[in-house]
């Protein structure tokens, strides 16, 4: 896999040494490879059992539950099968705001993915050449990513608060804002720009900004590692040929970085699409930020409607798979060619 930092030494297929080599016909090498097989299976089994019990079986059960009429109270007496119905899906698709929630999820995911990767790229380019305090800044830049999401979301909440937030106070002082802006609870904010009036989904944009801020270090780390593995000779040759900085970036660096950027986009897209914590903590899913993951939680805890929650989660997972399928169908070959 290409996810390892490029600096890390890698050997893909470890040659299994003489003891385990599939040997010429004979007695003892055969037993050695069988021993290796048995030891291997034994060594993986704890992991396999945990993953099977806590991940794979639950996912399969989610699929079953989605097609059953199941509330938390009557699930005790219920067998694994039975009560089949498609009501859950009807409920999910018909419920108010399903399609808008899907759109919100898409906008949120795309915005956060692009924003964090672009910011990470800019950061990696800026920190590429050494300067005084680079190590310190690089370490500090990882803070948003490693700090607990609950703590940083709370800081944002307080800082953006209309009553006691630092942002609104400075906004009033520096930019002369008339009214405090409720960043996290304003669905539509009217903006006047050059005589034009239009509404922007403020809460959604704030949540996207939070995601970009929190995950750009992730992109930064990967891109910087790749950037430092680009051979100097390439750029020097372009420099000799008189290429300017933007030309060198466009024609030398960007093609080199493209595979890792594509990988980061896919990875971040998947992870953001399923993200629950950040939106739930910042807005609780209100003010036009009701992403699908928060809806699953609402079905589950507010109504104890296990079937509907399972159906919603399944719809979420399937839409993600469709999107990824489309991506790989249209761009998969290109990415492979470039890497």
């Amino acid at each position: 896999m290409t996810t390892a930092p490029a600096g890390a030494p890698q050997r893909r297929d470890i040659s299994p040494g003489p003891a385990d080599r599939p040997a010429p016909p004979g007695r003892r090498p055969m037993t050695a490879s069988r021993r290796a097989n048995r030891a291997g299976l034994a060594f993986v089994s704890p992991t396999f059992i945990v993953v099977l019990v806590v991940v794979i079986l639950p996912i399969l059960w989610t699929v079953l539950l989605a097609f059953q009429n199941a509330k938390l109270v009557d699930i005790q007496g219920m067998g694994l099968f039975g009560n089949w119905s498609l009501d859950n899906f009807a409920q999910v698709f018909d419920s108010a705001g399903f399609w808008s929630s899907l759109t919100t999820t898409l906008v949120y995911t795309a915005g956060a993915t692009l924003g964090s990767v672009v910011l990470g790229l800019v950061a990696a380019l800026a920190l590429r050449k050494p300067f005084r305090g680079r190590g310190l800044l690089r370490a500090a830049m990882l803070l948003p990513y490693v700090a607990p999401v609950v703590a940083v979301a709370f800081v944002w909440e307080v800082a953006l608060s209309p009553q006691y937030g630092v942002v609104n106070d400075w906004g009033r002082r520096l930019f002369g804002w008339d009214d405090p802006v409720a960043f996290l609870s304003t669905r539509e904010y009217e903006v006047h720009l050059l005589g034009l009036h239009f509404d922007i989904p403020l809460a959604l944009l704030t949540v996207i900004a939070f995601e970009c801020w929190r995950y750009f270090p992730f992109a930064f780390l990967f891109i910087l590692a790749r950037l430092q593995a680009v051979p100097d000779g390439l750029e020097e040759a372009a420099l000799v040929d008189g290429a300017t900085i933007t030309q060198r970036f466009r024609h030398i660096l960007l093609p080199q970085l493209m595979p890792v950027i594509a990988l980061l986009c896919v990875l971040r897209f998947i992870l953001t699409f399923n993200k629950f914590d950040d939106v739930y903590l910042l807005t609780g899913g209100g003010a036009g930020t009701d992403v699908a993951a928060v809806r699953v939680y609402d079905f589950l805890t507010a109504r104890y409607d296990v079937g509907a929650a399972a159906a919603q989660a399944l719809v979420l997972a399937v839409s993600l798979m469709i999107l990824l399928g489309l991506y790989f169908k249209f761009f998969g070959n290109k990415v492979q060619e470039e890497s």
Partner: protein
Amino acid sequence: MTRKAALTRARFEDRLFAVLRWFVIAFLAVITVVPFYYMLLLSLKPIDALLLDPGSLWVSAKDFTLSTYRDVLRSTDDGGQGFLKFLLNSALVALGTVALTLLAAVPGAYAVSRLKFFGHRQVNALFLAVYMFPATLLAVPLFVVFAKLGLSSSLVGLAIVYVAQTVPVSIYMLRNYLVTIPYSIEEAAAIDGASRLQTVRKVILPLALPSLMATGLYIFMIAWNEFLFALLFLAAEPDKWTVPLGLAQLSNGIEVSKTVLMAGSVVLTIPVVLLFFAAERLLTEGLTSGADKS
């Protein structure tokens, strides 16, 4: 003529980006450091000082207080918020997760990197695929099963879920390190008559120690920061709350003052940040001391 124009363009861009670069660096420094500075700052002043002047970026000597920390840490019986208890819960869950995950991941990673067993090619991809599944897809059935088993309000149940969430990535991380350990070392041990298990315990583990520590710290950070499953399983039992859950639950209400909760955020953030910086150094030190000097 054209050559001169190209030169000026190059020079113009050089200058522009030299300036822009420092602008970007300053911007990055501000957006990453200021929120954490703000967190620390607010945790050191009483709520009145915050309400009086929300825009102030320092704390005056007159306002400076540590009572927020006393408030947040003290148990609820003494009128505090009981974060000491939450810290204990979080530490138990996180350390338990680290121990259990490493116990499963070390043999797993060894097998994946060294042994040819049935399905050894697929196993890594399978585990990583698991990591890509949405947590919400797991949330529903786990919520139900744990409610049924009575595990839903126990820290053990939470740790088990965290193990499943972290073990695939741990195997992946450890494997990436194990493949760099020369096979010749193991052969030497085998010639000396060590069994497979002895080799893993006495030869591989000491060599992989830096990677083990780094992986352990990574697992710890995930378990320490996790919120969704803690919320699903433990929300009803304030005694069992972990720090993230406690902070999130209390910040929803209005009873607890924001500066006290800010002290809670600092308490929640500091262990992770300290461990992270410790791990960074440890990892680089570990990687530079090679085992096979030949």
